[in-house]
């Protein structure tokens, strides 16, 4: 069909750029600037979707994405709003949620069975006899859901960006434009966010006066000023989707999520036109007046069908007259009111040959049998008490445009904590209790006329400027708007129902009322029970009528009844935008590439990567065994850089250590190491490491890989309270460490060029020394670790690669092997060492894991000390012990339970086959009565098979600890 394209009509389309797309297999030609919905309407394709429950045919209602009657889908994406999808060449779209075709949906049968499906019917049926729901659920699930997701779609590119401004103005309609300019003129930085592709808002389509060109010129002037203003940044086709604390605003634009931080927010988001509620008000062809205005002014589409207008206010008449001016047929105006506010309107209608039915109502909309579109409406008289009288006329029309009221776009304000108040006299909601720094202007503030709106906008701007401590000399202007736009009761109950309150959920008047009759009286219960407002448009059109109906049904005021909570997001937002591009950083030690070169199989250890073992995955077992054997009989080298390292320096370093860890440190000799275990304030073992005293005022303590960050934070927090004289530094990354372990380690270290006397007299077990190794400065410690003669070497990270190479070369003649985390675990298990976090859990206290020896009993204080004391006074409920398996039994795995007299008494925390000892060994929590060596315990292994194990003392290997003290 032809489009009307001139200055005032078809403003957004470019008729020189046709674009073809397919809908339901049919090729449709639109123009650049069209939305899919407007292009479809230009081709008289009014049926664009099927409703959720009754599968009734639906078409556009608002034509601006405020309703969900135009949900369509593409091969990649379900649930797209056709009136917000720009037409693109080659776009392929289809309807959703039908069985058969969009034009013939067999599920429409549900509409005819509607009377058997009252509100909440699914709570009353489908579950008897027991188990029935399991049979019904798959059917219900298939019937539910709107679009179909494409399970193989690849994520499109998205990104995120930050923006900062003094004042964010949301909405680029007349109020927003004026507010932005006023703020910018005041010297503040403005970000203006507009959802449509261009600025202007209602100035683009609403007939504020009959001289459309005049309004357009005003608009163009405003827009030019905005774009030229150096203090204003404009984002178009951008939706501010929420208000978060301290004016943190997500703005969605195309592929980008802007995270805007503003100091003040001005909401000029307008208001949503509301629908009238009568039988079949959902027929394709029944639209808002603003939709018809948009259709002609923005897209140049003038439907040929006769237009009827349902008026609850004067604004509806503008739509009728505009259409008439554009050359369309306007057959009638059905006015709910006896009089217009503007007396001249009725006369003008008459002059134009438009019949006016005063104090009448549309009782029923009808379509011709076999078609889905509106074909005529039955008009009835309306009594003063809103009772319906006799039929007056039947009017043939293809489009019915209604204007009965507006609901402020309250969502962002209410997300921020604002409240809605209903005024019975004007029959509309207004917003109050705005949070600090938020201002509203325009129709969102119930100001509808252009002149009043400008004053309102400037007032909001002044308030924002003042809040920014920018002096504003002028006084605020009086806002005088007498426009009455809301009709108090645009409802017509019909005995056969289908007067839709909520289009998304197919809810009619009786559904809402019956919910209250069933006892669900609170507006929140009405919502949850009936699902009103829970669909895609989240109550934009159903909130107001529901509040009115529920108020009446429960004998309360509309304000008392209220609407349900406004929650983000304002419009449905693509998950891809929220997820953004994701980065998964890995921490690598300075030796990472050496591990790879040696075929190290890397595994996560916290945020780090460590080699589990070296070799091919198919040889895992033998590789680990070989590594273990190397350490026990020759020498092995392991990268322990990930183990935390903390330097404590100062006069109170020792005192601090004494308070932070359980052991005694004040009298620790310089040049010695000590086991450092800590408990949290509940007395639970939370981390451990080795503490070396480098000098009287200098400690170096290690921690577990995953625990060091927390240990460091805890240290800082305690000292923020104790104010001891020391400095605490986390040097985990600055220093890297390796452990050279095995009977040949002394020799290898000597050959590597260590300038220290390594004899046991000069460097005994548990000592700390400083030396250079091949010129590399190092901190050396002899610690228990894997139970062999060994040296832990800490060097500056940039030098650890060289150290590794030097040691590997020196060890070559001794058969040196690198060993990984698996071998380390096994070796340490052979010595019965516990792993904090594996052999201890969230409740383990020192007594349960034989760490009493590591507690200095006479210290006045250590973190968790008092709690440990209290726990110690209670009988033990479990104890961690070593066990071994005597017969050839299934190998228990970590997590398998220890069973005693049919009850769970503990579990296995570590268990491995020891190649050194040639038997299965492990650690487990057992009943305290079974904790003695020689006790028999039962472990339930895979598939319920019980293994008999024997408790043994640890260490399993080298019980006298001779080898590590060599």
């Amino acid at each position, binding site marked *: 069909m032809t489009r009307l394209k001139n200055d005032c009509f078809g403003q957004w389309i470019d008729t020189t750029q046709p674009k073809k797309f397919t809908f339901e297999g049919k090729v449709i030609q639109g123009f650049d600037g069209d939305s899919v919905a407007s292009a479809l309407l230009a081709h008289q394709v009014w049926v664009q979707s099927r409703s959720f429950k009754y599968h009734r045919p639906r078409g556009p209602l608002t034509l601006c994405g405020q309703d969900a009657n135009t949900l369509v889908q593409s091969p990649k994406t379900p649930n797209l709003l056709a009136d917000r999808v720009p037409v693109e060449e080659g776009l392929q779209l289809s309807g959703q949620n039908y069985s058969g075709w969009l034009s013939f949906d067999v599920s429409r049968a549900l509409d005819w069975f509607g009377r058997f499906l009252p509100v909440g019917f699914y*709570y009353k049926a489908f*579950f008897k006899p027991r188990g029935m*729901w399991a049979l019904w659920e798959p059917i219900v699930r298939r019937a*539910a*859901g709107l679009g179909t997701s494409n399970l193989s779609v690849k994520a499109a590119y998205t990104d995120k960006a930050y923006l900062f401004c003094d004042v964010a103005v949301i909405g680029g309609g007349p109020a927003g434009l004026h507010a932005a300019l006023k703020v910018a003129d005041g010297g503040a930085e403005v970000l203006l966010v507009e959802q449509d592709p261009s600025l202007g808002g209602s100035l683009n389509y609403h007939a504020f006066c009959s001289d459309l060109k005049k309004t357009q010129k005003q608009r163009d002037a405003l827009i030019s000023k905005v774009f030229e203003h150096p203090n204003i940044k404009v984002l178009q086709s951008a939706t501010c989707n929420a208000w978060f604390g301290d004016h943190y605003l997500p703005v969605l634009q195309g592929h980008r999520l802007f995270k805007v931080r503003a100091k003040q927010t001005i909401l000029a988001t307008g208001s949503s036109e509301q629908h009238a509620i009568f039988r079949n008000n959902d027929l394709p062809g029944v639209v808002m007046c603003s939709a018809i205005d948009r259709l002609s002014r923005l897209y140049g589409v003038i439907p040929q069908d006769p237009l009827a207008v349902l008026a609850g206010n004067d604004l509806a008449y503008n739509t009728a007259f505009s259409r008439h001016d554009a050359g369309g047929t306007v057959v009638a105006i059905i006015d709910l009111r006896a009089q217009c506010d503007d007396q001249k309107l009725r006369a003008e209608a008459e002059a134009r040959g438009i019949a006016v039915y005063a104090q009448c109502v549309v009782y029923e909309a009808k379509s011709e049998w076999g078609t889905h579109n509106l074909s005529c409406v039955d008009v009835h008289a309306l009594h003063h008490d809103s009772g319906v009288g006799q039929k007056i006329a039947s009017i043939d029309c293809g489009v019915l445009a209604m204007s009965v009221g507006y609901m402020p776009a309250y969502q962002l304000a209410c997300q921020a904590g604002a409240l809605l108040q209903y005024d019975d006299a004007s029959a509309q909601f207004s917003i109050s209790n705005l949070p600090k720094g938020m201002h509203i202007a325009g129709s969102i503030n119930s100001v509808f006329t252009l002149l009043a709106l400008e004053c309102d906008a400037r007032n909001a701007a002044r308030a924002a400027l003042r809040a920014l401590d920018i002096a504003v000399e002028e006084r605020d202007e009086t806002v005088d708007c007498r426009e009455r736009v809301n009709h108090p009761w645009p409802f017509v109950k019909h005995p056969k129902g289908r007067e839709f309150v909520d289009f998304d959920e197919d809810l009619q008047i009786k559904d809402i009322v019956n919910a209250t009759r069933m006892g669900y009286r609170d507006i929140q219960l009405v919502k949850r029970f009936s699902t009103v407002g829970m669909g895609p448009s989240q109550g934009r059109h159903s909130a107001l009528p529901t509040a009115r109906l529920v108020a009446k049904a429960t004998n309360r005021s509309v304000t008392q009844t209220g609407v349900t909570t406004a929650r983000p997001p304002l419009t449905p937002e693509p*998950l891809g935008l929220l997820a953004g591009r994701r980065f998964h950083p890995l921490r690598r030690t300075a030796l990472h590439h050496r591990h790879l070169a040696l075929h190290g199989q890397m595994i996560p250890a916290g945020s780090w990567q460590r080699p589990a073992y070296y070799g091919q995955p198919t040889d895992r077992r033998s590789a680990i065994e070989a590594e273990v054997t190397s350490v026990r009989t020759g020498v092995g080298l392991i990268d322990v850089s990930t183990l935390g390292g903390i330097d404590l320096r100062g006069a109170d370093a020792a005192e601090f250590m004494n308070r932070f860890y359980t052991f005694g440190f004040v009298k620790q000799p310089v040049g010695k190491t000590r086991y450092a275990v800590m408990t949290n304030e509940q007395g639970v073992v939370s981390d451990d490491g080795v503490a070396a005293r480098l000098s009287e005022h200098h400690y170096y303590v290690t921690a577990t890989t995953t625990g060091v960050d927390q240990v460091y934070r805890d240290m800082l927090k305690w000292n923020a309270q104790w104010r001891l004289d020391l400095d605490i530094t986390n040097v985990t990354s600055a220093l890297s460490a390796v452990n050279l372990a095995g009977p040949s380690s002394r020799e290898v270290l000597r050959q590597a060029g260590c300038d220290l006397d390594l004899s046991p007299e000069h460097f005994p077990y548990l000592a700390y020394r400083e030396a250079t190794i091949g010129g590399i400065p190092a901190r050396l410690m002899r610690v228990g670790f894997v139970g062999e003669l060994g040296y832990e070497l800490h060097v500056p990270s940039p030098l650890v690669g060289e150290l590794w190479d030097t040691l590997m070369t020196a060890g070559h003649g001794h058969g040196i092997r690198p060993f990984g985390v698996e071998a380390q675990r096994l070796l340490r298990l052979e010595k019965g060492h516990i792993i904090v976090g594996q052999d201890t859990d969230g409740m383990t206290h020192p007594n349960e894991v034989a760490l009493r020896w590591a507690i200095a009993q006479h210290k006045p204080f250590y973190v968790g000390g008092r709690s440990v004391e209290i*726990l110690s006074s209670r009988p033990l409920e479990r104890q961690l012990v070593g066990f071994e398996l005597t017969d050839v039994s299934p190998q228990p795995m970590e997590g398998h339970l220890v069973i005693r007299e049919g009850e769970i008494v503990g579990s296995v925390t570590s268990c491995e086959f020891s190649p050194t000892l040639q038997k299965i060994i492990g650690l487990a929590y057992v009943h305290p009565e079974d904790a003695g060596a020689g006790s028999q315990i039962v472990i339930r292994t895979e598939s319920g098979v019980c293994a008999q194990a024997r408790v043994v003392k640890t260490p399993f290997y080298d019980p006298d600890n001779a080898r590590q003290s060599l």
Partner: protein
Amino acid sequence: MPLGLLKYGINSDYPFDKEADLPPPSDLQARYDVVIIGGGGHGVATAYYLAKYHGITNVAVLEKGYLGGGNTARNTAVIRSNYLTPEGVKFYSASVKLFENLSNEFDFNIMYSQRGQLTLAHTDATVRSFRQRAEVNKHYGGRTELISPSDIAKLVPTLNLNPANLPVLAGLWHRDGATARHDAVAWGYARGATQRGVELHQLTEVTDVLTHGGRVTGVQTNRGVVNAGVVVQAVAGHSALLAQKAGFKLPLVAYPLQAMVTLPVKPFLTPLVSSSALHCYVQQTSRGEIVFGGGSDPYPLYNSRSSLPLKESLIASAVEMFPFLSEMRLLRQWAGVTDMTSDYSPIMGLTPLENYYIDAGWGTWGFKATPICGKTMAELVASGGKVPKLIQPFELDRFSRFKQVNEMGATAASH
């Protein structure tokens, strides 16, 4: 067509008032034998069991907002018993059993759907912990097992097995895991209770607890004083505040817990899937919406506001798990206020006041326990203060005795 629906079609104006689920508002009496503070799932469940199984009907449930409007309305409806401690598993298993028959118990469809719950392990440490949970579950008759990545691929073909550089090593597959319409649970219990004479008073806020000589005598409400023989408090997020009015303290910290939901799509996901490392879980409701839940907010707040950073990280995790979700659209986000304990187990039973009982510390794990809570709290009341064995481990005293029941590992992001 279920025959039960026929009656609605025959009468064009069905007398819903006569068959209402909930009674209209009524006056508060001066006294009740039992006053239950909190009209959420736990509160009305307790009233139901008192009325139906103990014949105690002189009961009033006082709810400051609307029925079930607290965390019962806001949770993500996960029903499971795959916990870690024997005490926890015994308790939650009993709840799962009650859920299985709940619709028929109180004649209201809660749309109970036993779809199974799968939790993913991405580290060796988690695999160990999962193995233990599977064993404990099996010990008490649950259907839980540790499964391999290839089994996971068969169960959930659409799942990405290498999300965020954290390959899935194993899964805890809990066949008993289920979901239900969470609001309906509260409505069903409330209907059953009120039909048996229990009074439900909404918009009735308890502003003070009146005590004398170590006993509670009644409560002060915004509608006047109500005397009580016994008081039960079941108010979730505000538990510690209310307890303080009663003169004792609770070791609770209130943290918001957020959740969010997409527009509905046709079914593609049957089990409930959760990732421990990504702190995210995903399920598809019978309406077709995808629900996401994650870990608690990072700091305490008595406020159910939503936030952007949590949404970003939660959805990022979800998209890692199911990449095609990137094309779906988020419809709504919300939050509840959860009363967290240090051991992630609840606080149930006696208080320093002789006739004042407590049901609190439900943190992020309360919905699944609704039936067993109602049952055991009713037993506690009906027996005059004898604590049922099943809930003894959750006594308030356990903290002063340092005898916690640690369920932290079995909770995070799998509420």
